[in-house]
């Protein structure tokens, strides 16, 4: 499938396209260089201030029209790596977005 194909609401229809959008949003809202947002990169090591992450999650929820459930059992470090965050968003989109592929 074309990586740029989009479903309802302009959301890319495939995981790669969605991941790109997720990383774009995280980079924009946290001010972290997009190139540093590698899947295995640790959120803590990126030194993202807690409120920047809150803002990024808010923007992700708005962009994909989803509500990201809090993973309470992880405590303060809800997402250990960039991949954890991306997978959480992708799973939530799959579960909730109307017409998701």
């Amino acid at each position, binding site marked *: 499938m074309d990586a740029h194909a989009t479903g309802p609401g302009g959301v890319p229809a495939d995981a790669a396209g969605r991941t790109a959008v997720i990383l774009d949003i995280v980079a924009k*809202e946290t*001010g972290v260089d997009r190139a540093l947002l590698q899947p295995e990169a640790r959120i803590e090591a990126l030194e993202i201030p807690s*409120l*920047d992450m*809150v*803002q990024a*999650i*808010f923007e992700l*929820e*708005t962009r994909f029209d989803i509500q990201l459930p809090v993973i309470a059992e992880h405590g303060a470090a809800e997402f250990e790596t960039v991949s954890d965050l991306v997978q959480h968003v992708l799973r939530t989109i799959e579960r909730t977005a109307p017409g998701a592929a």
Partner: protein
Amino acid sequence: MTDPDRRAVVTGMGAVCATGHDVPAFLAALRDGAVGIAPIDTIPTEKLSVPIAAAIRGLDIGQHIPDRRQRVLDRAAQLALIAGVQAMAQSGLEAPQLTDGAVILAATSGQETLDAAYAQLHAGGRVHPLTVPRVMANAPASTLSQEFGLRGPCFAVASACASASHAIGLAAQMIRAGMVEVAVTGGADASVTVGFLKGWEGLRVLSADACRPFSHNRSGLVIGEGAGILVLESAGHARRRGATVIAEIAGFGMTADAGDLTAPSAEGAGRAMAAALADAGCAPAEIGYVNAHGTGTWLNDRTEVEALRQVFGAHLDRLPVSSTKSMIGHCMTAGGALELIATVMALRDGVLPPTMGFAEPDPDCAIDCVPNAARTADVAAAMSNAFAFGGLNAVLVARRWEG
């Protein structure tokens, strides 16, 4: 006080309000009698019955604070930061001198954030996730602590419209007591919002046309917004680093009325003035200027004059007393800080700010209110009054710095 090095002195000032976006502009506007009260054009007014305020216009926040920093700050904290940067620059203090410094500011709730959150909620939308850090009453204080690396005592003082005066008084006392050498103090308030103004409309004390303190035709107060931040330090600390001292905070008095929640008390206000004079070791006749609380409500102004008469007696007949709220509005929790800066102008520059809009003498307000035009005067000591809802009174006495 026995040790002159422990006197609390002002070495930096910052201001942003309706009539000026920095201290030089603010003081020039006071000298010119510029009135910053105008029809509101910063927020939607269709729900307002009283659509005037002393709002800050033409201030490009983005020029002062980067976007990502802005978004975690309510407008009140943004104003505090802008004024704080000015004050710190004037003081010439640098990072190592600030490590143990204090930040004591007026407590203020982020009204713009609250308004937006409720509007979003009732429109079926989502409340912004940074709502809590934006509205917390200590946000302006924490913001300045972060910005300048001040790691000593940091807190916010809540006493409604006396908050900034209480904060400055506490900061001065902590310096005099030897607890800290440097304190950043004052207040910021951004209450020109629909929700807050509707609340004030309900109290029936807002003027629909102008703020005319002490004038017989006065019609109420006008809400303003702004920030006033002062850098205080011990006289010894200032001397050792060769800083330029602007004025001394010489006395602080505070009392409670223990009476009506909103109606003022001459007795409570008078006791606070007397306490500030005693703390400063200052005879009433030494005071050359009073910056009044002077809200422009019927009750406040006559009650304040009654209190002034009790404290100053016959000296009141020769004592200029003006209200700068006639120009910058009532800046709520920040008022006392901006008004202290106006008081400092009288001490340092020998210019008394006027009471604008004065039209008709009121026999119950028989004072020299410096009507409608600034005036030069030689003032060695001056007083700044703040009286708050809840019956809370805070009075500061400042002295011209003679070294």
